[in-house]
Each structure stands twice: as C-alpha cells, then as structure tokens.
C-alpha cells in the first residue's frame, strides 16, 4: 500500500506557474497554501493580488481573489476584511507595489491595525516591468534605471520595511525571513503561519517580509541569485522578528 508523503496543498490550483526558474514566488505561494490548509481556512480565505509578477495570483490559488490597483491592496483589503471579519484576508505584494507606490496604504493599514496579513516579497527589483530600480534595490546594485548601479547620492537609499512598520503600534506581528535555503524556507513557513494565526485571533495587522530573488532581472543563474540573497540582501535586510505583541516586542 502506498502512502502519500508529499502533495500539492489543497489551496493551489493545477495551473503551471509563469514565474522564472529560481524565482521565490513559487516557494512562497506554496507555503501560504500549506499554512492555510493547516489552519483549516482553505474555503475561508480571500487573497489580494498586487501589480507586479504576482498579479496572476488568482490563477494559482483556489481562494476568492481580486486584482488590486498598484500599491492599493492594503486599502482594498481594509474594505474586504471590514466587510468579512470572519475571513482570512491576505495581501501579497512586491517591493515596488508595497514600498514605493503603495507606501501610504501599507503604513496606514498597519497603523490602523487592520486585521489582515501582508506577505511582502522583497527582491530588490521591479520584476514584471523588466528590472527597474525598486525602493529596496541595494546600493551599487544594477537596474535598468540605475545602469551603473544604485548611487545613493543620486537615487536615494533603500527602505527597510519591517523596521519601518515595526515602529507603529498597530501591527501585532512583523518578521523578516528569506527563501535562500531550506532552513530559511522552513522558518518562512513558520512566520507565515504565525502571522495568519495572529490574524485569526484578531490581534491586529501582521506582515511577513520575505527576502527573495529575481535571477532574470538580476542577470544571475538561479543558484547565484540565492547566493546573492545570502551574501548581499540578508546583511542589508537582517532577518528576525521585529514585532510580536505576544512577546511584548
């Protein structure tokens, strides 16, 4: 008799992901679906798609979903969650979406303590539009709009979202994780699950910042891109728990 030891989570559809080889989105999609399955929320979840590579999220999850305007998912999620306080509501946003055009919406949703969860993918680049500089692009890192590398005197400095939002009183839980290694993927799953649990308990806003890779727009192989996350991204964006009201943090 055969035993199933590994399967696709119930929350994912059968659609093939359109993401590039080595991209972190697929990993994080799967982790969200696993967590939602384990929390018994598969038929009780609404996920809000950003503008960016993850705009096609409605193709990949069985949850109710909505394509949001660029950066506005936290405002739209406010409307959804206030209407359905019993649903698990997730915004999934990249760095251009959340930390540039949508900065006002994420800051205020967090400050209001809106009871939804944001999964924030930080890969330091605009992916879908082809590699332009993001607010999270590292100093010296090349982008199609910073072709000699980000010069902080010209282009300004990157923004650390987990630190910035953790200064507010509204968030219940904020952690920065990464998907560059199996150990970090396991920690990422634990963080996502905790964020969703805090939402279920109605404790406030929760956000998991996932430091991820973009091999295509970074101009690297998948393996090299993950090494870049470890050697360059994580030192600038330190991993850890930035806010946890249960721990008095």
């Amino acid at each position, binding site marked *: 008799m055969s035993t199933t030891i590994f399967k696709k989570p119930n929350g994912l559809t059968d659609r093939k992901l359109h993401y590039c080889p080595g991209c972190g989105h697929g990993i994080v999609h799967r982790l969200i679906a696993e967590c939602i399955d384990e929390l018994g929320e*598969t*038929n009780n979840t*609404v996920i*809000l*798609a950003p503008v960016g590579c993850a*705009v*096609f999220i*409605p193709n990949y*999850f*069985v*949850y*109710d*979903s*909505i*394509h*949001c*305007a660029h950066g*506005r998912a936290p*405002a*739209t*999620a*406010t*409307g*959804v*969650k*206030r*209407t*359905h306080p019993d*649903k698990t509501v997730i915004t999934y946003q990249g760095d251009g979406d959340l930390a540039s055009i949508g900065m*006002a*919406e994420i*800051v*205020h949703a967090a400050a*209001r303590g809106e009871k939804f969860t944001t999964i924030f993918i930080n890969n330091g680049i605009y992916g879908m539009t082809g590699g332009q500089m993001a607010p999270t692009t590292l100093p010296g890192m090349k982008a199609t709009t910073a072709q000699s590398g980000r010069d902080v005197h010209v282009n300004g400095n990157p923004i650390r979202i987990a630190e910035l939002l953790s200064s507010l009183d509204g968030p219940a839980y904020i952690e920065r994780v990464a998907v560059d290694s199996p150990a970090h993927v396991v920690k990422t799953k634990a963080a996502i699950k905790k964020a969703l649990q805090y939402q279920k308990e109605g404790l406030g806003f929760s956000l998991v910042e996932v430091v991820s890779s973009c091999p295509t727009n970074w101009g690297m192989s998948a393996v090299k891109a993950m090494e870049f996350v470890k050697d360059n991204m994580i030192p600038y964006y330190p991993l850890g728990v930035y806010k946890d009201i249960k721990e008095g943090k």
Partner: protein
Amino acid sequence: MAKVLMKGNEATGKAAILAGCKFFAGYPITPQNEVPEYLSRELPLAGGTFVQAESEVAAINMLYGAGSAGARCMTSSSSPGIALKQEGIGYCVFGEVPCVINSVSRGGPALGTIQPSQQDYNQATRGGANGDYHIPVLAPASIQEAVDAIKEAFEIADFYRTPVMVLQDGLIGQMMEPVDFDKPVKKREIPPKSEWALGYGKGNPHIIEGIVIDAPACEQKNLRFFKEKYEVMEANEVRYEEYMMDDAEYAFVAYGSSSRICKTAIKTLRDKGIKIGLIRPKTLWPFPQVPFQNKNIKLFIDVEMNMGQMVPDVALACNDKNKVKFFGRCGGMIPSPEEVVAAAEKIIGGAE
C-alpha cells in the same frame, strides 16, 4: 413621515444609511465634510463601518474591496478629491464592483475655490480613468432629489454592478431644505451577491478582475459591458424634467443648481412674453435625447456654472450645433437670475 429640515450633506449621509450602506470611506475636503462627519457618528449605530481613509485614493480602493465583498458602500468627495479617485473608479468598473461616489463639486482646476461649481461635468460624465467606460451620473437639483438620487444610486449600482456617481455641487451640499426620507425608490431585482462577491466562493473561487492579459478576451469584456450595461442604461436609466415646455419656443438646458436659477429666470422672461422653458437632465450620463427632438425649439440655451461643458452633449442630442447657445459663470461664481435673463434676452434678440 413629515418633512424634516436638513443640510444637504447630512441628508446625503442619512440617505446612504437608509439605502443600506454598510461601508463608507472618505477623506476630508470642503464643501462635503458634513457627509463623513455625519456618517462617522451615525453609520456605526446602523451596523455599518466608517473608515477615515489616509487619502482619496485609499478611500476609493477601500470601496473596491468592500463592494467586492458584497457590502453596499459609498465614498464622498469634492472636485480635486474626485480627480484622485478616477483610477479606482476604473477598477470598480472593470471588476464590476457596485459602489456609490458622491461628488460635491467646487470651483477648479486644482484646489480652485471652495465655492459651488459645475466645472466637473466632464470629470463626471467622461471620467478620468483609463479605458472605454461609462458610469451613470445622477444630478439632483434639491436636497430632496439628492436624497432620492443617493437611494437610487445604490439600486442602480447593484443592478448593473457598476460605480454610480451622484454629482451635486457645494450649493446643494451646504444649504438646508425640507426633505422627506420616506419617498420610495424603485426596487430592482438584484442577483444575490453570494453568486459573485468575495467571501462566498468556498473553493469555487470568486475572482474580481482587474486584468485580462489576453487582448481578444479583454476586447470581449469591453464589448459585453457596452451591450449588457451601457446600451441598457441608455435605454432604461435616462431621467429628465421638462418645465414649461408645452408652448416653448426656447429652452434653457440646465441641471443641478443652475437649473433652479433658470426656473426663476423663466418667470421673468415669460412675463416679458418670451416663451421659454427648461429641459433639465437628471441623469448626465446617460444623457437625455428625447426632449431635444422638440422641433418647436428655436434655440437651446445651455446655462451652467462652468464654461459650457454640456454644450457638446446638447448639440449631439438636438443634432444642430447652430441651435445651441451658452451662458455660464465659472470658478465658483453663481449666476444670478438677472444675469441669466439678460443673457437669454441677448441670445434670443440676436436670433430674431
């Protein structure tokens, strides 16, 4: 019920609650501040949610979420604020999300002035979002009509799954008039929101679409809207009033506050023997066509608190641009009945 004396903006808020509004998001801007102020106090008592949004942009996107989730929802703003909401209105159109946008217009462009204006006719009827689309625009001329329009706007929004705009101006928002809140509104057969709204999918996902990447499919969606929504609205949702038009040889064309000034001017002009009436569009989109087929009318005199934004619609409707004349004030200035009388006499005198 007996009529009550109420300020326009507060009456608008109360009408929304009576219509079953369960979610309001807005941002402070003059001259509509009494709408969010009233609703911040009263909507929670009626089991609804009030959110003071961080921006106009956030407020309309909150409606995009609340409307998608099946709540009757409204936002309210004024001219520069409505300008900021345009992108979100486009998303509500494409995602077929019912919502009501109350617009209490003031002089512009930019911050312009806080005085009443009708300079947002094009903003309301043409819209500023990208793409091909129309939304119904109701134009009340009194507080009673504003209350009725808000209630009907929710019905229209749900029936067609569309944003609906109620275009008022600072005059209607700020003045007080007696109003009957019990006037019935036409109830429509609205499909249960559980059939499409977020939070009801239960594994058979409900998706609110903002993108259709495949161009032929995107075109089909646009064409469906034109056939199933806009053409039906043009057939069924046009509202207008004809005032003293039975024997009229001339017609003012005016909506909202300027139509009331025209009614006063008509009395004076009729006393002088000029047979003039008023065609008053109560919907600015879809724009009335039938009253402009009146062949007895020698001239249509468009009177607006702007520089003639409705003129092209009147010219298209009567199919003779030479018959369309214009008088207006703009930038927050309100024409007096005497000015309108003088302008009409000059226009009519020049025609004879």
